[in-house]
């Protein structure tokens, strides 16, 4: 009986051998926008043999995991560093990193980041129908890094022209779109890029969408 208990304990300890991460989930809350951030996942080789990290994958190309080396001796500690290039992302972000080792184990790690709302365009879609002849407007509001200036505004389709006007200096802008030919018979779709620069020099890119739906031809 004692032999079986001992065997059970040994098997249990073997099951936990290998890399053990101090925490498999790191949650970060950011108060203001940044271009990138770094997170760390410390770990330890709790086994009796050398463990080799054979592969590390991330759920997004924006998340880059890095290790100082691949082999970790028994009782040796290490840190998996993860760089998250935020780009123009905002709001809650959940990234998964998977670490594979030569003992057949895989470790799934989560990086959860709550990014602040940097800006908001409302509405994100302006729809023109055949009967629409006037301009249509959206509003972009910036929440950080004042004063913000719009440095470029471009429509991917020349069927539309776009302009911006200040509503509240350095924070709120009115974006006006005009359909060049309201009598066009072909539909048009455009992605409008709104480039802006905050007081810190941080450049951001926001998008909104324009669409023209001509009248259906008479049967």
């Amino acid at each position, binding site marked *: 009986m004692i032999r079986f208990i001992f065997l059970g304990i040994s098997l249990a300890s073997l099951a936990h051998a290998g890399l053990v991460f101090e925490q498999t989930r790191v949650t970060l809350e950011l108060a203001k926008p940044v271009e990138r951030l770094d997170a760390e996942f410390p770990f330890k080789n709790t086994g009796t043999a050398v463990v080799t990290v054979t592969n590390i994958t991330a*759920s997004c190309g924006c998340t880059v995991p890095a290790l100082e080396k691949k082999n970790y001796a028994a009782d040796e500690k290490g840190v998996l560093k993860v760089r998250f290039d935020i780009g123009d*992302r905002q*709001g809650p972000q959940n990234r998964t990193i998977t670490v594979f080792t030569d003992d057949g184990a895989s470790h799934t790690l989560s990086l959860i980041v709550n990014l602040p709302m940097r800006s908001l*365009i*409302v*509405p*994100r*879609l302006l729809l023109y129908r055949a009967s629409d002849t006037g301009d249509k407007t959206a509003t972009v509001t910036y929440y950080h890094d004042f004063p913000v200036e719009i440095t470029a505004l471009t429509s991917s389709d020349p069927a539309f022209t776009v302009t911006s006007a200040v509503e509240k200096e350095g924070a709120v802008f009115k974006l006006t779109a005009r359909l060049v030919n309201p009598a066009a018979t072909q539909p048009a*779709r455009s992605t409008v890029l709104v480039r802006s620069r905050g007081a810190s020099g941080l450049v951001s890119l926001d998008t909104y969408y324009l669409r023209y739906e001509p009248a259906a031809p008479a049967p």
Partner: protein
Amino acid sequence: MIRRTLLLLLLPLLPAGLTGWLHPRQPDWKQALNPVPVVSIARLRASPAAPTLWIDAREPALYARGHLPGALNLSETNWEANLPAVIDAWTPRHRVAVYCDGGGCEASHAVARRLRRELALTQIVILGEGWQALAPAVTPPR
């Protein structure tokens, strides 16, 4: 005595009202008073007049494992990357139906609220049952 009591009771309303009006993180009152309707799959099928654009609000890994045929994945974490495909697929004739795991999951509510706010959609509903109920009825993607 009564006047003083009333005054003491009413006085806090002033700062409370100001906070509710001016606070930078005040609730979205419009949304709170007019939530996106939650409907059942039976009710959705009973009114087939409008074509339905299905939005799967779960995380991409869960979507990859299985989703309603034709459903597009749009979650808070891949919003900017996947929104263009949703806008491309949507037409003014479409009714948008958003689902997540079911069982009171919050993702479909968050995505539906944001779609309605950002795209000014009028025909948008949340599917009450969610993927747990839908999964047995559909063929997983290859």
